[in-house]
């Protein structure tokens, strides 16, 4: 399937996309990149549409020389700092690092989720996995306003959130890797700054708390869902 799609992409790129005006071409690459990341999240190494269109060579730094004006200026500074010599030495390659300026898929996912949430929550719940029906009563006992962020987008969790009148955001991994998933989750809690953050046990949620728990604890009370203090 992946090989077939790659063949279709290459043919489409040559036959159609590369003949489009630049603005259209940029948009076409952005759409293709989003679709490719959705379909094959584990297979697409590119971090942006630009890298996707440019191929592996555009992802990593390429060997180059400083622009002529910068080269001359660095030469003048070598007398002050000998460590600069490799930047202007004869035949010494300097890496031209490419920043993926259009790497917006993480920010896009964050922004979509953030727009579904408000401010001043009494409680926010990081939910994942199977939410037990018995949790309904505990959720109902949580302070209001209440927000639930579900890293698995489970229908049962969405239903339960609706029943108790909580704001609900589905935040499945999709095309986010573990680092990005954790970062988006933490960013939502940091920006909303609920009085209390309750979290279920789940690989993504556990990783998020392990990485960003210290920062989260500075804006909210962070408590695992299964502590003795059952109610928010």
């Amino acid at each position, binding site marked *: 399937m992946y090989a077939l799609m790659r063949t279709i992409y290459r043919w489409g790129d040559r036959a159609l996309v590369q003949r489009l005006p630049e603005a259209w071409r940029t948009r076409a690459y952005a759409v293709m990149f989003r679709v490719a990341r959705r379909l094959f999240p584990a297979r697409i190494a590119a971090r942006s549409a630009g890298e996707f269109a440019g191929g592996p060579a555009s992802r990593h730094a390429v060997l180059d020389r*400083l622009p002529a004006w910068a080269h001359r*200026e660095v030469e003048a500074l070598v007398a002050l700092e000998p460590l600069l010599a*490799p930047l202007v030495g004869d035949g010494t390659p300097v890496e031209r*690092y490419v920043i*993926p300026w259009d790497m*917006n898929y993480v920010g896009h996912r964050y922004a979509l989720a953030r727009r579904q949430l408000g401010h001043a929550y009494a409680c926010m719940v990081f939910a994942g996995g199977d939410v037990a029906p018995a949790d309904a009563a505990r959720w109902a006992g949580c302070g209001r306003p209440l927000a639930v962020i579900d890293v698995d987008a489970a229908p049962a969790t969405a239903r339960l959130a609706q029943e108790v009148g909580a704001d609900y955001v589905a935040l499945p991994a999709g095309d986010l890797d573990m680092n990005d998933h954790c970062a988006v989750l*933490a960013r939502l809690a940091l920006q909303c700054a609920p009085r209390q953050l309750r979290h279920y046990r789940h690989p993504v949620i556990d990783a998020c708390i392990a990485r*960003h728990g210290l*920062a989260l604890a500075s804006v909210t009370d962070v408590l695992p869902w299964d502590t003795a203090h059952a109610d928010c």
Partner: protein
Amino acid sequence: MAPATAAANSISAVLTFHRERQMAVATLHAVERMRRFAEARGVRVQLVMTLDGGDPETEAAIAGHPALRDGDTLHHVQLSDLSLCRNYAIERADGAFVAILDGDDLFSENWLAAAVECIVEHGPATIAHPRLMIAFGIWNAYWEQLDQTDPRFLPETLVSLNHWNACSVARREVFARCPYVVARVGESGFGFEDWHWNCETIAHGYVHRAVERTFRLERRKAEGSLNLAHQSHAAIVRPSAFFDTL
């Protein structure tokens, strides 16, 4: 406290030192080179330096440097934080503009003068950055910084990318309105104070621009890098009003 009035074409170069030792010597020579270039174009440059903790070798390298002039100041502080050092120096700066410089970096000769020119041309809401960042030391590389007004700039990318390094020039009131926030990563879990400052300034309506044909030379070390410390602690950028506008 900063004086109520400042010469319209004066710039305070804020330099933060810690334990740079002899690296501070090269930095101050590069700063003097920028100062002469700027003065030839009518821009007065004052150095406002902090030595945070520090050691005798670094202090000697700074205090005995031939580039220092009357009016330059060196403040000995015990703040253990880069952000607080910058704020401390900015409060004591008297230039109409402030430049943020690290104590072990070097710069193109035209950086300060071209940055002031850019702000005068585009207006007081402008924050200037060098166009090129050049790494040297254990890694020799360069990359470009993007202009916020460039159509390729996508605001949501700031969730996962920092577009501009701390090396910047802006009017002094920009820094007063948006001070740096403490970033002791091991204590708070927060980090990347320059990234946070970029977000906050955008939320306040300032515009980050990259100045053509200017660069900052960023020293890359095997250890002792604040950026690496932030990464190894899985630091995250503090909450910012900017992230509520996306």
